[in-house]
């Protein structure tokens, strides 16, 4: 399994989501969420790779927002979440939605409780505690007092080979092959060995 830095997870996930067809703004969310999950010891790159593989295209226009789009819409309104439970809606990649809420908790310095069938999670600034079964598709969210933590380690993480290859394959789609014109344009202009 490759060892990659959190910055590489962020950048590769962002490019992969873009390569899959996400608009840039959502691709940026994908990068930050994959990084956030990995930094908390969760399969961020792997969750995103699975989502992109399932979708292989942007959800816009399909009428069914993907986990990136619905998670972003949910987190965008995080300041409105109070004691009354709000449902995140059905989606196929709950960890990515959880990451959006976790990042909102970091940014807003607020606590949230997520519940799903057979489990739940408490989130606060730099804090994440998951109990019970893995996050399932339907989650409810409430604001709550949750003790904040300390920033997770910035150390590199192991990622799954196949997932990393998937992300890199999607990321490759945003690259432009070299042409004579592009090489000439990027050059030093005059001599560069003097």
């Amino acid at each position: 399994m490759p060892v990659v830095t959190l910055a590489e997870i962020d950048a590769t996930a962002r490019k992969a989501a873009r390569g899959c067809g996400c608009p840039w703004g959502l691709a940026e969310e994908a990068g930050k969420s994959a990084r956030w999950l990995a930094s908390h010891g969760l399969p961020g790159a792997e969750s995103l790779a699975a989502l992109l593989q399932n979708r292989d295209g942007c959800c816009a226009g399909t009428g069914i927002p993907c986990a990136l789009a619905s998670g972003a819409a949910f987190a965008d309104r995080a300041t409105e979440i109070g004691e009354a439970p709000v449902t995140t809606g059905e989606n196929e990649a709950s960890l990515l939605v959880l990451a959006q809420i976790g990042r909102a908790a970091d940014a807003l310095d607020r606590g949230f409780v997520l519940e799903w069938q057979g489990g739940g999670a408490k989130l606060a600034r730099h804090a994440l505690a998951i109990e019970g079964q893995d996050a399932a598709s339907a989650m409810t969210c409430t604001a709550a007092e949750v003790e904040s933590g300390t920033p997770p380690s910035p150390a590199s993480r192991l990622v799954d080979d196949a997932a990393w290859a998937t992300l890199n394959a999607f990321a490759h789609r945003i690259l432009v092959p070299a042409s004579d014109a592009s090489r000439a344009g990027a050059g030093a202009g005059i001599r560069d060995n003097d």
Partner: protein
Amino acid sequence: MRLARMGSAHQSRLSFMRSLLRSLKRENWRFDRPVWSVDKNGVGHAVYRAIGPRRTYSLVAFAHDLPDDMRSDRVIATAWDATFALFDGTPTDVDIARLSQNVPKQEAGRISDRELSLSRANRSVRLWSHVVERLAKGEQPDEEQIDGVGYLMRTTAVYGSGKFGAADRAVLAGRTIMGAPFHAEMLAVWLIRSFSVDLVEHMARIKGGERAARIEPPLRHRLGIGNSTGLGMAPFLVNHPALLNAWMTARETAIARVRSLSHATPEAQVVFRRRLSRARENAAGWHSEHPVQIPKLKALRADLDLLAAHVESGALDEAFPWDALIGWSETALSMEGQEQLASLILEPYGDLVDDLVPTMATDEAACFRIDGTMTVAALRALLSRDYDWATGIDHDPAARCARFWYVSEEKLEPRLGQRHEEPGAEREEPLDISRAACALDAALVEEADDTILADFLLRCPEYRHTVRRVQIAATRPYAEIRENLIDGEMLPIDMLRCKLAYFGASRFDPRSDRWVRICLYRNAPFPDDLADAPEDDWA
């Protein structure tokens, strides 16, 4: 904040290499070279350590025997005269063995969390052989040749912040000195400068034996370290709006503090005059063959002559002299001269402005989140207030959207393409800020005032990137370069120069509209004389 002004930027007290050396001196850092293992062909490795009160950093340098025909500053090069990693601590033999398998390959290798930067350098062919020849004969190098080139080696890339396996930026975030932007990279470059001198003296000893000379200190100080930078650096300023705002705000705040002083003490006047005189020397020795830079340099030299005469006629004895001087410059000097003056007035006032250095780092994650409860009406108001420079541009004419930014498959590096002539525009990077602001502005026309952005963006996610920028810029007046970055006449070197001036670079010498050579640490102390040198009196 326009490109023409950014493209006239000069280094200042707040530049990262100056703040780094101030901090190292104040904290009494020690420096040594525990390993020097370089053979008679100039091949081997060396370790340079910077030892501070809390931490030690080590430059691990690898010297190679590079055939002349393989030497290139281009990012597509695959071999270099020397390659380097900045290690977090003191490396063991095992670390060095691991690095020796990876650092010489640069992008094709892999470093680890223990390394803070990865870089490489090429010799200046012109100066290197001259210096070796002279030293080998026991003579000193020719001063004119030293000043003409300015460096023995030029770095062609300095990677940090989680690239190619290096430690994530968050590793450094809380550290006293290395927490400042680019201080780790600037430390690596400063130690590379020492290595370049040690290696040239080593080669002279191999050639000349006992009679070989070392470069005498006054001449040695005039050697900086070169740098050759291409387009890769340009998108950074656009992709880090909050950081750009922090840098610009620090400098503008410093200028405002000095402008608010009611008088200039005799001591402050002496410092200003000395630094002005140094700036004139710098401008006199600064050469470029580039058609854009030649007239700018000519104007700068004339500006500095005018400024010196104005100062001698008593300008500093007026009330609020610095404010008056800046006001005078707005009509009397070219943009080069205005920006040089803005940097110069900070020189006498370290006690007033140096405390701004810590504000130049910023927590970008903290401002990334979109406030989706904001209404369309509020966003429209922000666009109208902060993006009128963009929404007034008509991007339809071919020349106004002539370029597109992309990342090359070949080297994963940012490049600039011709939209109407080259393939690939469908893979464009989001650096078309002004055009995207226009598109958002147009899309909002159809929306009700009280629609909240979370709902708008769920329907129209293609505007999410731009909405984020508008919200970041709402409280950060210097977040955006107020220019059409896909315009056919846009000069990428203006972005490079601005960023490099924040590093502390001098002698900007554009080689094309997207490629610039510079000199770093010219006249700066070396590690072995930092302790005895006057504080921050070299640039």
